[in-house]
């Protein structure tokens, strides 16, 4: 199922969970700065990276996302002191667990983007989109005929 040739015309669907204070504002900066980035992203704004439950990520995949991006404030910048640091622990475990289960790496990405980093936001989206595009549409497990 992978490879761009087999998926001509296909555009990845990427769900981005962005914290309100830094990354969402960073996306805004990218827009204000008229920076180009792929239109593959559906943004969901959350109060803090710490608000992002692993459920959100699995639900996004379950409902058809090909990739998921989670982005919050850089360490030290969290508006709730350490919400992003707590989130980092959760996501470190989740990233490893999904890899362990054989779920393709490259579909789930975590990063930090600050409010002023419009350029970085555009680059991140570019990188994630390219990575997911290389992987092709997410493989769905419809199971056997039991």
């Amino acid at each position: 199922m992978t490879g761009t040739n087999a998926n001509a015309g296909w555009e990845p669907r990427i769900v981005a969970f962005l914290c309100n204070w830094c990354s969402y504002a960073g996306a805004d900066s990218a827009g204000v700065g008229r920076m180009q980035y792929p239109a593959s992203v559906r943004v969901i704004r959350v109060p803090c990276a710490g608000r992002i439950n692993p459920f959100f990520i699995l639900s996004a995949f379950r409902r058809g996302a090909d990739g998921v991006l989670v982005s919050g404030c850089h360490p030290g910048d969290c508006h709730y002191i350490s919400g992003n640091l707590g989130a980092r622990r959760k996501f470190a475990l989740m990233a490893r667990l999904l890899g362990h289960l054989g779920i393709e790496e490259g579909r789930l990405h975590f990063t930090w983007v600050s409010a002023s980093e419009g350029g970085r936001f555009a680059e991140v989206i570019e990188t994630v989109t390219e990575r997911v595009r290389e992987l092709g549409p997410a493989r769905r497990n419809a199971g056997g005929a039991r």
Partner: protein
Amino acid sequence: MTDTIHGRESLVRLLEGILAMPGVTVYAPVAEGDGAAFDRVLSASEALLDSSGAVRPPRQILAPMTETLLAMEPGGSAVDSVPAPEPTILFGARPCDARAIVFLDRVYAGGDRIDPYYAARREALTILSIGCREPRATCFCTSTRGGPLSVEGSDILLEPSGEGWIVRIITERGASLVGRAGLGSSDGRVTDPAAFPQAGAPRDLSALRGRLEQAFDDPRWEALTAKCLGCGACTFLCPSCHCFDIVDAEEDGRIVRSRIWDSCQFKTFTRQASGHDPRPTGADRYRHRLMHKFSYCLESYGMPGCVGCGRCVEACPVNLDIRLLLDAFGGER
């Protein structure tokens, strides 16, 4: 033409013969981890014919864990998805499994409203059962009006005899399968059921029922079920449990309405939107399960809702043995 299957190899050949029939689907016990489940087999080597019974009952052949009732494509209207299965043969059911299907027939295909999904699968099904040579520690079929050579529900019963089996045709459908498989059959019962190893002394169902009904408000329910975890292992491994929920979801761009297995042991089963729950405690829910099987079903369906297969005894993570509760509440006082 022979009416006897001499030993295991002949049994394998019979299964091979059935598998070779065009246009049939065959289910038989297959290995699943350390246990066994009824699943579709394509070759006789997949089947576990020596197993003393599958861990998972054949119920999912007729009432799958999740079954689409209606589906709607984007922009379309809802269409029902009643299956049209090809002829299906359940090979190697235990007599208790076949009796459980008799019970399911009364639930789904009885009364004035027939469940078309179940009925379509049932109509296509032929059941070949193999009698039980010896009971397991968990068996209690004899307490539910069954037995190791019980014929109810089976189209064909292979009665153990020496190292082999005698073919008994129970129904027309069984006769047709026997004919196609190149077997003959014995005319009458050859084996004396009473001479067979039985699963313990039978319990008197009608006396049991009366005592259970009297024990409804017995204060011991709570203590005797205190270790119940409230999981659904007993109900989901039960061959005759039939409860389900109906849920809607979006599945790969289609909107589907499905039914999924549900369990009276779950806290959410009877809890109303207002928060009121007529069966709020684990003891209430356990009592309901027991009373349903041994009292209510006798009234509604003329047979107990339990065939004594023992799967719930085996599966219970905390070994809450339904037989002990039957004796505690329904035994002689």
